[in-house]
């Protein structure tokens, strides 16, 4: 035991290295690089190795489940109703069966949240919003749509023109299966060209109105037109793209 200890320190000062500072600065720089280039690296890895790898990495390709109320409304398939009213020729309430009887549409598109997470290659299926509008007959004075949710808190808006885009759908299938409760099932909106907050969950009603009424998130400061490329609106979410 005693032999393990040496004599008191030599006179010459021991050379010391600021490992702490170096590590701190180095790793922080790495973090900053991750912020700036992380999404390109994720894209590259996703393309090179398929989306399977992204699922293995922490943080890659996964949904963050948001709910305004802190709870998920649970709606049985047979109880589901979508009420379409307002400035329409033939107001109508759709059941899930009614929606599934309409011409289906499906595609694979990413879900991009405004706060900065993204799930690429999500399979979506449902009915084009334009088909629903055509079936009820939108009156000429109509300007916009107001969407309501079973959660009684969330609302959304789209202009009639936006609603006619081919990748704006009333979705009953997502990720290759019926839309789950936490994803807004049995029926949710999916607005592909806009940020995720426009894709209202637990869709309960569509009112056709004569002016755009900002929805819940827009009342909380998000752009009314939540285009992914940030091309419109004074409250543009993406300064780099203006």
């Amino acid at each position, binding site marked *: *035991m*005693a032999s*393990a*200890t*040496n004599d*008191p*320190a030599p006179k010459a000062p*021991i*050379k*010391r*290295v*600021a*490992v*702490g*500072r170096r*590590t*701190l600065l180095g*790793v*922080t720089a790495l*973090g*900053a690089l*991750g*912020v*700036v*280039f*992380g*999404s*390109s690296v*994720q894209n590259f890895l996703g393309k090179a190795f398929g989306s399977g790898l992204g699922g293995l*990495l*922490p*943080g*890659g390709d996964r949904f*963050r*489940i*948001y*709910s305004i109320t*802190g*709870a*998920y409304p649970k709606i049985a398939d047979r109880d589901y109703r979508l009420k379409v009213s307002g400035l329409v020729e033939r107001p109508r309430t759709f059941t899930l069966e009614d929606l599934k009887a309409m011409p289906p549409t499906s595609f694979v598109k990413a879900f*991009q949240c*405004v*706060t*900065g*997470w*993204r799930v690429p290659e999500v399979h979506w299926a449902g009915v084009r919003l334009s088909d629903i509008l055509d079936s009820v007959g939108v009156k000429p004075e109509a300007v916009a749509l107001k969407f309501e949710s079973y959660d009684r808190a969330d609302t959304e808006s789209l202009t009639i023109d936006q609603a006619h885009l081919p990748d704006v759908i009333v979705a009953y299938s997502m990720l290759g299966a019926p839309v*789950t409760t*936490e994803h807004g099932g049995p029926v949710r909106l999916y607005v592909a060209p806009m940020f995720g907050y426009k894709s209202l969950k637990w869709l309960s009603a569509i009112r056709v109105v004569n002016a755009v009424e900002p929805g819940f998130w827009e009342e909380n*400061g998000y752009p009314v037109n939540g285009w*992914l490329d*940030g091309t419109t609106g004074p409250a543009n*979410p*993406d*300064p*780099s*793209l203006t």
Partner: protein
Amino acid sequence: MAITQANSLAVTRIRRFDRVQRAAHWANAALFGLLIFTAIPLYFGSFFSVVMPRHLMEMIHLWSGLALPIPIIVSLLGPWGRQMRRDLGRINYWTRSEIRWIKTLGKTPLEADKFNPGQKLNSIFTGTVIIIMLGTGSMLQWFRFFPVPWRLGATFVHDVFAFAIFAVVVGHIFMALAHRDSLRSMFTGWVSEKWAATNAASWLKEKQLKGDSPNSR
């Protein structure tokens, strides 16, 4: 010499942490605990949302995150922070043998400083992740000011480091439970001279050279 000391070694106490350091450690630990506790339901939302109100979790996570650097900064900056600053220097500056020790994962001989290189690395990691998590977390909270690719990058970095922190914190707790004397000193401030002789020999020698009296800092 070694034999005559043996009797007194067991009873002589040495101050390892002063009150400020212990307060800073436990405040920091409490904040990390809150952050991890609230991160789990936020990250794995679908399992927990029914049990825990999400908004409350978000608010706790946000505020404890913003408070995270406070214990360390306050304990370092005040006139009360002398010991804290001195130990920061110990954690920062490494000798060649310490670097060798960490590179060989503890297989080379080392007369340990007040903190061994593993402990130093844990402290450095903690300081670093506070900066990174606070930075990326702020980007996610105030996302409007950042381009979308940066938001994605910040999410990625925040998540990756969250996993790393979880692993390191679990490791830290296991080490603390396995080294009870070390853990006790974080509560009481004291270690025995005997403990120091085996676990922090270089520090003990330094103290003896300086002629510090027993029970001194």
